[in-house]
């Protein structure tokens, strides 16, 4: 009998915490939603705080997925499956996080711009930002400037995120930013932009604070800019 039978079924509940978290990293990587949901429930049953499950098991696992995507080891389909698995875990944790008053780093309003229905990148960013401790208000697809302005007025976010997949729709980001400037709102928000045809130069040219190449970069950029903002307010 082989000592390490690859077909041997792993019983998650029989693993200790460290092994279970490592196994959940693997399961996230492989996009196994049911296993992730089971792992989350086991850790909660063992007395883990929801925030700890989120950060140590789910976000830790997605960080590996994000890094391998960036390095060209994983591709969009695999990332989507991993995200779907994480979504399963998040669905269990979200109400518990709200109850336990888990810390929030900041708030983001995010949406795909007018004329554009592509939301895969935006959805990944939303999920990763939530996982990193941001409160995210997702405006969905095809957002006109009025939709963004209303949401900023209503939600008072720290960050506005805009996404576009098309060369024809990405210039609309400038329309939104120019309107914010005209209305004297631009400096009240951190503006992050992303999407396949964008680049850093475009982000600078339209007056965004940063272009984010992928969801992992969006999270790191958001954290860094929020910290810088707090520092400048403190130095104030």
């Amino acid at each position, binding site marked *: 009998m082989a000592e390490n039978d690859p077909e041997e079924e792993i019983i998650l509940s029989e693993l200790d915490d460290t092994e279970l978290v490592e196994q959940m990293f693997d399961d996230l990587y492989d996009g196994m939603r049911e296993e992730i949901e089971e792992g989350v429930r086991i850790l909660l049953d063992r007395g883990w705080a929801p925030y700890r499950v989120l950060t140590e098991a789910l976000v830790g696992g997605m960080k590996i997925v994000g890094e391998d995507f960036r390095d060209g080891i994983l591709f969009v389909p695999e990332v989507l499956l991993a995200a779907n698995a994480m979504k399963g875990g998040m669905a269990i944790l979200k109400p518990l996080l709200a109850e336990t008053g888990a810390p929030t780093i900041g708030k983001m309003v995010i949406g795909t711009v007018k004329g554009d229905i592509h939301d895969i990148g935006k959805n990944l960013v939303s999920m990763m930002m939530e996982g990193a401790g941001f409160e995210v208000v997702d405006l969905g697809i095809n957002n006109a400037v009025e939709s963004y302005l209303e949401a900023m007025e209503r939600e008072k976010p720290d960050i506005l995120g805009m996404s576009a997949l098309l*060369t024809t729709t990405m210039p609309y980001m400038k329309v939104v930013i120019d309107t914010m400037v005209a209305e004297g709102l631009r400096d009240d928000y951190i503006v992050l932009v992303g999407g396949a045809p964008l680049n850093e130069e475009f982000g600078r040219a339209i007056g965004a604070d940063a272009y984010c190449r992928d969801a992992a970069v969006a999270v790191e950029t958001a954290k860094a800019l929020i910290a810088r903002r707090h520092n400048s307010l403190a130095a104030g």
Partner: protein
Amino acid sequence: MTRTPDGFATSGPSLPSDIELTTAGLPLAWTVEPNAAERGRILLIACGALAREVLALRAQPSLSHLHLTCLPANLHNHPERIPAAVRTAVEQHRGTYAHIKLLYADCGTGGQLATLCEELGIEMLPGPHCYAFFDGTERFAARAEMTSFYLTDFLVRQFDAFVWRPLGLDRHPELRDAYFGNYRNLVHLAQIDDPDTAQLAKRHAERLGLDFERRVTGYGDLGTAMQGWARSDR
């Protein structure tokens, strides 16, 4: 190979397959006699996805002096790689030709192809992509069909290479709605009125869970651009 008196092929080895046009493009040798004393004055550098259409147009006597080479069509799966490939091709050929024209639209490069063309001093096709110039760039923009997913004849035939496999739908068909859930219909922009291609396009729409629409566009602005370039050199 049969050639016209000025050295161009009128028949000969069959055009590379769609798979070859996708992965390798079309070599210049296909339209140019290797030892021809007279070299052309205009070279078209095109996307491999346009090879058949450009060659069909080039069959007109007024366009037959245009030489053609194509880059692999699958560069479209990584649009950020298109500008570098174009630069290499232009640098390779610019010593030989008086004029080089680029048969690419923006093609998801976010304006980088236009910037490159400006730097290199060459012309390219207008508009966002081939769907637009086949349909007519202005008409396409006016339609503003954001919930339509487009396929040209080439993309209908190479659907698996450009859509199904790169999106992982061969391995994970359950992801279909994550990609296409916001789309309403698949529009087949047909360059040639061919019932087999139309049938295939309809099947792709069914696979994607989308309504199907077909428009016979012909070659649209592609022909207009080639004729303009050919005339300007006379």
